[in-house]
């Protein structure tokens, strides 16, 4: 039980006792003909010597009952005979568990249920609670002490991403099996166990142990930010643009104020009305800043006849990094598409040379460039560079090639790779290409059936992206996204500081170099240099570098998976301690009433 609740209950009880005391000490006023008769009567009715100290019988019984109840409370009484054996409780802590059903958060309701199960399960068995957030975690090891679990459940909150119930149930199953086998080895007769899953998502558990599912939550309406992004405008030095998409996950019309701010500076503030199930995108651009840290929020949400059930999906974050001058060497025999694409990036300092000039360069002179872009040219023998982007690689270069194919059709792309971020290849035509022979560890970015048309290679000290076709062999260069493709590919090959690509969505990992401090969105310092799973949206700080994590892609309707508010477990009875306390209070009230009416005098 939260300390605040305990304090509130104690204050309430204190106020009640004080009120009773005051009521008891405030007699009714009654006019009588002559009080001297009453005084004489009181004198004659006064108990004689020993009887003067006699405690009225009923008051004595009431006091004894109160004392017995106090002793019983001290003994931590429970209802029934409890749950036999070992119980593993899996508590979903995904984003939707933060939704409010009738003023109460689903997670709070679920914690109440978990407490009841803990109370029942720790009578005759061990119990543990697994928090099923984006990554499952064991809140407290297997124990029979309800107090330990109570402390672990205090202050439990939800993640900004979906609950990984499957993994959590896997952990629960393994824990339970291990505990039961240990119990059997210790000679325990007939060790039994069960898993209790408390979730707001329809889920069919596949576990070896018997599983009880306690569904929480009812369908609720919500408005959510389903997409939020900001990036530099390639054609305007220093400017950036933001795009936000808002969805109405409700069957009612809704209105909302969409606000985007760069720190304290608002860049968008617009009120929109959304029809049922409508999505709408808003864009704002033309803002100049060296760097920007954007916070988008839905404010003053109004849904006709309803309310916004999940405030967590009303926020999103984005960061526009500062421009950094990067020296790039383009080696080409005159490819204007590539030159134009590179020139469009305000942060690039591009130098162009042909193959003959390249032959005169040494490894030391090339080391001055952050990256090389080779257009149909291979590096001279004996010279290497850690960051290379290649179009139409020649035979005998850094990659092995297959026989040329005509008009290959792109059948698959690795869209999750940072080099292809924001680029689609639907309808892109390629006249000819020489497919690449991929090596172990290569990531195939574009594939035509079993042929690799583009690969990304990451080695400990070098990165390489190779497109097996030239700019004159495809209409890709005529698309607006071609400069973006070049920039993203260059950014990836040049970004050696990050061993793994940074994910901007919650659920990804965050790793810093040794000595760099990681700070969470709320300013809390993270001790470890690695956060395996970022579960909280917001702007994180990685040694001074700001990285935004948002959960907009997890926004969805609330209630599609909910199965109603009824519980499979018969746990509707309040805790016995509360009942005993209520009985105590009732006894005190009865005693007071009897005393007040003179029955016990």
């Amino acid at each position, binding site marked *: 039980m939260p300390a605040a609740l305990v304090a509130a209950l104690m204050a309430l009880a204190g106020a009640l006792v004080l009120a009773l005391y005051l009521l008891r000490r405030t007699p009714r006023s*009654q006019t009588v*003909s*002559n009080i*001297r008769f*009453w005084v004489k009567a009181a004198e004659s*009715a006064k108990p004689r010597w020993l009887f003067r100290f006699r405690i009225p019988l009923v008051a004595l019984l009431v006091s004894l009952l109160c004392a017995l109840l106090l002793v019983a409370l001290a003994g931590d009484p429970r209802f029934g005979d409890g749950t036999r054996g070992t119980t593993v409780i899996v508590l979903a802590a995904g984003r939707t568990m933060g939704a409010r059903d009738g003023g109460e958060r689903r997670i709070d309701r679920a914690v109440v249920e978990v407490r009841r199960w803990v109370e029942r399960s720790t009578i005759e068995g061990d119990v543990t609670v697994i928090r099923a957030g984006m990554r499952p975690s064991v809140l407290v090891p297997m124990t029979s002490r309800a107090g330990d679990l109570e402390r672990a459940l205090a202050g439990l909150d939800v993640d900004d991403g979906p609950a990984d119930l499957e993994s959590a149930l896997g952990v629960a199953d393994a824990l339970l099996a291990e505990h039961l086998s240990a119990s059997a080895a210790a000679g325990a007769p007939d060790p039994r166990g069960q898993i209790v899953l408390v979730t707001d998502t329809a889920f069919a558990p596949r576990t070896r142990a018997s599983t009880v599912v306690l569904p929480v939550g009812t369908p609720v309406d919500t408005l959510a930010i389903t997409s939020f992004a900001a990036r530099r405008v390639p054609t305007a030095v220093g400017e950036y643009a933001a795009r936000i998409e808002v969805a109405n996950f409700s069957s009612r019309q809704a209105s909302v104020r969409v606000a985007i701010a760069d720190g304290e500076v608002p860049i968008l503030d617009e009120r929109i009305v959304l029809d049922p199930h409508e999505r709408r995108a808003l864009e704002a651009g033309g803002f100049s800043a060296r760097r920007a840290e954007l916070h988008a929020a839905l404010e003053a949400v109004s849904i006709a006849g309803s309310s916004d059930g999940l405030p967590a999906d009303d926020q999103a974050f984005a960061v526009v990094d500062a421009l950094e001058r990067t020296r790039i060497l383009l080696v080409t025999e005159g490819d204007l598409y590539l030159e134009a694409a590179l020139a469009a990036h305000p942060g690039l300092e591009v130098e162009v040379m042909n193959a003959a000039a390249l032959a005169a360069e040494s490894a030391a002179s090339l080391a001055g460039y952050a990256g090389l872009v080779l257009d149909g040219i291979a590096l001279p023998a004996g010279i290497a560079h850690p960051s290379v982007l290649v179009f139409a690689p020649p035979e005998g270069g850094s990659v092995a090639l297959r026989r040329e194919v005509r008009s290959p059709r792109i059948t698959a792309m690795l869209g999750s790779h940072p080099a292809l971020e924001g680029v689609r290849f639907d309808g892109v035509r390629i006249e000819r290409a020489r497919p690449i022979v991929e090596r172990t560890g290569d990531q195939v970015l574009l594939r035509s059936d079993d042929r690799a048309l583009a690969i990304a290679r990451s080695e400990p000290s070098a990165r390489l992206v190779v497109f097996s076709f030239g700019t004159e062999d495809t209409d890709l260069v005529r698309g607006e996204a071609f400069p973006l493709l070049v920039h993203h590919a260059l950014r990836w090959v040049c970004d050696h500081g990050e061993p793994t690509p940074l994910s901007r969505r919650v659920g990804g990992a965050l790793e810093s170099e040794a000595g760099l401090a990681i700070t969470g969105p709320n300013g809390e310092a993270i001790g470890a240099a690695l956060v395996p799973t970022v579960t909280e949206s917001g702007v994180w700080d990685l040694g001074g570098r700001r990285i935004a994590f948002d959960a907009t892609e997890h926004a969805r309707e609330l209630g599609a998976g909910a199965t109603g508010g009824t519980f499979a477990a018969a746990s509707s009875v309040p805790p016995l301690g509360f009942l005993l306390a209520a009985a105590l209070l009732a006894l005190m009230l009865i005693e007071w009433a009897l*005393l007040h009416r003179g029955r016990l005098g």
Partner: protein
Amino acid sequence: MKTLDDKARRLLDRLALFVRPKATAGRQGGHRSPVLASGVEFADHRPYVPGDDFRRIDWRAFAKNGQLVMRQFEEERDARIYVLLDLSGSMACGAPPKIEIGKRIAAAFAYVGMKQFDRAVVIPFGAGVVGDTRPLRTSADLPEVDRFLEGCMAGGPTSLPDAVRGLGARFPQRGLVVVVSDLMSPEGFAEGFRTLGAVGHELRVVHLESAEDLAPPWEGELELLDAESGDKVRLRVDARLLEAYRKEIRQHVGACRDACRRAGGRFVEVPVEQPFELLLRRAFAGDERSGSRKGAA
């Protein structure tokens, strides 16, 4: 304000107050007196002595016995009716308030006295005599009684002995003293009754009983406020205390009744909650326990 309505007056017209001879006054009236003189009711014979009125010689007895004897007759005189009405604060208690019933009973006694041409005086008292009407002789004076009683308000303490002393100072003649009171004071009433008897008044006590006084229904933690003195006392009223209180009241009323009897008076208990006509009958009839003559009124 009319204290007696037509229905009550019709009832009272059929009633009469009988006063013992020794308590009668000096004027001719309707009550037997201890004085043997001219009258209509034969009382006795006595021997003739010179100087007696020849007209009262019983010639029939002379013819029979040869002795001159005089016929004697009881003289019928009027009486003074003193109606002492308790105006202490306790009379304001009860449902209905005892003072309202007390006023009507006082007016009733005065009315019956006036109707039979006695001289009726209404004397309210509290710690002493508060005031009085003039001696009234005819029923036509009833409106004056009404006006007088209308100005009487209950309040303050009670002292019957002081009131009796005040009565003696203002009206030295003996008569019928009707005390209309709730007797809700532990001291004074028995002494007052003894004094009235000793002075030679004929005493009639109308005890206004209220259920609130005799058997109060209260229980619990109470702050009791004295209606007369304003004193307060805080008590937890329970069954034991109520029983002790009832016992106290019984003893007190019993002591008053005994004092009244010893003074030769008549003690009548009148529950104020009863209908007024029934209540009047009880006030004028007395009860069997008092040992008084049945049908005296």
